């Protein structure tokens, strides 16, 4: 079985005028199907750049990136867009929902760009919103929803295309502790999906089965761990 993400010697260099900034200096990483991996690191460690490369928002300067067995490191912008559309779902710290657009339409958005017909789009988006517990709020606008609910809409949007990989960039960064726990419970409870979570908080990384730590553009450590879960009793309370 091929790895969902296979990075081989990825480097990424930004030229800022005369200075070259090496954000990634040869990162090799493999994420298997169904894994829940947290990428940690302080700011400047290269984790955002790594997440952009893994998310096909950016191309590596050198190295090879196989996503679902397909080499995407040399793809054009349009090809990358299609790859993002079909294979990746994003969850951002600041939710990134379209304003003045209903929850349902926000979730329909990726399907719109892959050319799914109106009826099927509506049905799949509704199902995705029900899956995250927002079946009753299809017509709500983002500003009528709480932060936790907005993040659920974003998760529904990420899941609606049935992607191979879900990329979460500080998904709890804008949420309070209780809501964060709810969102993390939702993310860790998803089945049949590979999740890469980028965070700088140990509390959040604790939910993952595996923690990869970056420093200065290189992998510092890569450890398996027993994932943290809420005590079901406490959850009920």
């Amino acid at each position, binding site marked *: 079985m091929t790895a969902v993400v296979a990075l081989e010697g990825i480097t990424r260099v930004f030229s800022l005028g005369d200075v070259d900034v090496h954000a990634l200096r040869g990162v090799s990483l493999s994420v298997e199907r169904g894994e829940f991996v947290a990428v940690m690191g302080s700011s400047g460690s290269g984790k955002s750049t790594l997440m*952009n490369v893994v*998310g096909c*928002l*950016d191309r590596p300067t050198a190295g090879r990136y196989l996503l679902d067995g397909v080499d995407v490191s040399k793809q054009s*912008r*349009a090809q990358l*867009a*299609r790859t*993002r*559309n*079909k294979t990746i779902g*994003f969850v*951002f710290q600041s939710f*990134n*929902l*379209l*304003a*003045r657009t209903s929850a349902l339409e926000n979730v329909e*958005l*990726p399907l*719109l*760009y*892959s*050319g799914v017909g109106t009826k099927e789009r509506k049905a799949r988006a509704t199902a995705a919103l029900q899956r995250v517990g927002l079946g009753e709020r299809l017509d709500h606008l983002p500003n009528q929803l709480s932060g936790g609910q907005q993040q659920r809409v974003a998760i529904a*949007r990420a899941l609606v*295309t049935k992607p191979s990989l879900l990329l979460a960039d500080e998904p709890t960064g804008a949420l309070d502790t209780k809501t964060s726990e709810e969102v993390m419970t939702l993310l860790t409870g998803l089945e049949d999906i590979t999740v890469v979570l980028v965070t700088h908080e140990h509390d959040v990384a604790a939910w993952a089965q595996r923690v990869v730590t970056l420093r200065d553009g290189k992998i510092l450590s890569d450890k398996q761990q027993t994932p943290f879960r809420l005590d079901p009793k406490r959850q009920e309370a």
Partner: protein
Amino acid sequence: MGPLQTSRLALRALLRNKLRSFLTALGIIIGVAAVIAMVAIGEGARSQVEETFAAMGTNLLIVMPGSNSSGGARGGFGTQPTLTWDDLKAIQTEASLVSGAAPTLRMNGQVQSDEQNWGTSIQGTTPNYFEIRRWPTTLGSPMSDSDLDSGAKVMWLGATVAEKLFGPGSDPLGQAVRVKGVPFVVAGVLAKKGQSPMGQDYDDTVFIPSSTFKARLSPGLGNFLSGVIFVQVRTGEDTARAQRQVTSLLRDRHRLGQGAEDDFSIRNLAEVASAQQQGADTLSALLASIAAVSLLVGGIGIMNIMLVSVTERTREIGIRMAVGATPGQILAQFLVEALVLAIVGGLVGVGLGLFAAQQLSVQFGWPLLVRADIVALATGFSGLVGVGFGLYPALKASRMDPITALRFE
């Protein structure tokens, strides 16, 4: 994503900002409406001029006798009879570029039917005058050579005079009309000819044979022709050359040496007509170009708003790209937004322009002259403006880097 989806997306984005979209489209609305209304005005003015000169007769020269100067007071053209009946014959036979010539002797006087009387101008002429002026007889028969040869006391009424003497729609054929006590029989009524370029009513006149005019009304001075000669030139392009030809012919006949002033004058109506025509064309072009500028300004308005909109919606663009919109799809979305603005504006502008043209035509009494090609052109051009001025902002949107766009606050 099909074109229908893209259009719906664009429409929704435009409706989210109704006032702004309306104001942007307004530039195009006004531009297109202005083009259509202005061209209609220009066409109306041109048709007015054309109609006037068509009534006057084209390819026409008018030869007038010279001025009488006695004791330093120069009397103006026509005060001294210098043209002779032989001059007329010479113009008819010797000038190669001339297809016909006819005299008109003119006096003002009272014409009387049994019931009514009317002051008008009485003109003596020959049958070919009506050909030269393209002036058909609608009732009765046209003047014939035998009328001329016999000096018959027969009369053709202009439409205005017929109405004044016998009432509208009546049949005055065979009725008696007296001029200075001389009884004439009405032999025909002429077609309505309208107004001269100076606003004079062509139809307020009566015609009798020139021979009768001389014998019964105003004998004139022997062989001198106390009136003017209408000359018809073979083709319109030859008018100026024909004018020179007639001038040299008459100078020869009048034995004018070099340096001597002409003792006659020739008016070239084609020249007057083309001058007025040019005036109308210039007006037309001027109005159209002003309107075109306003359409261009409308287009720049679209570009301006689209640029603002692209910047404002940077984050939206980032989100769309992150979930898989290709640069082409983003380009299409913004281009279609500009197109919708321009085309909707163009269509509303066409409606408004047609309405304005209709109002103007009523106001000025012109025929409604909306040129279909101009309407199509204005609409097409507004679409083109949409693409032209929408393309740059749309390209700008499609070239955004999703990472930067997502971080945009």
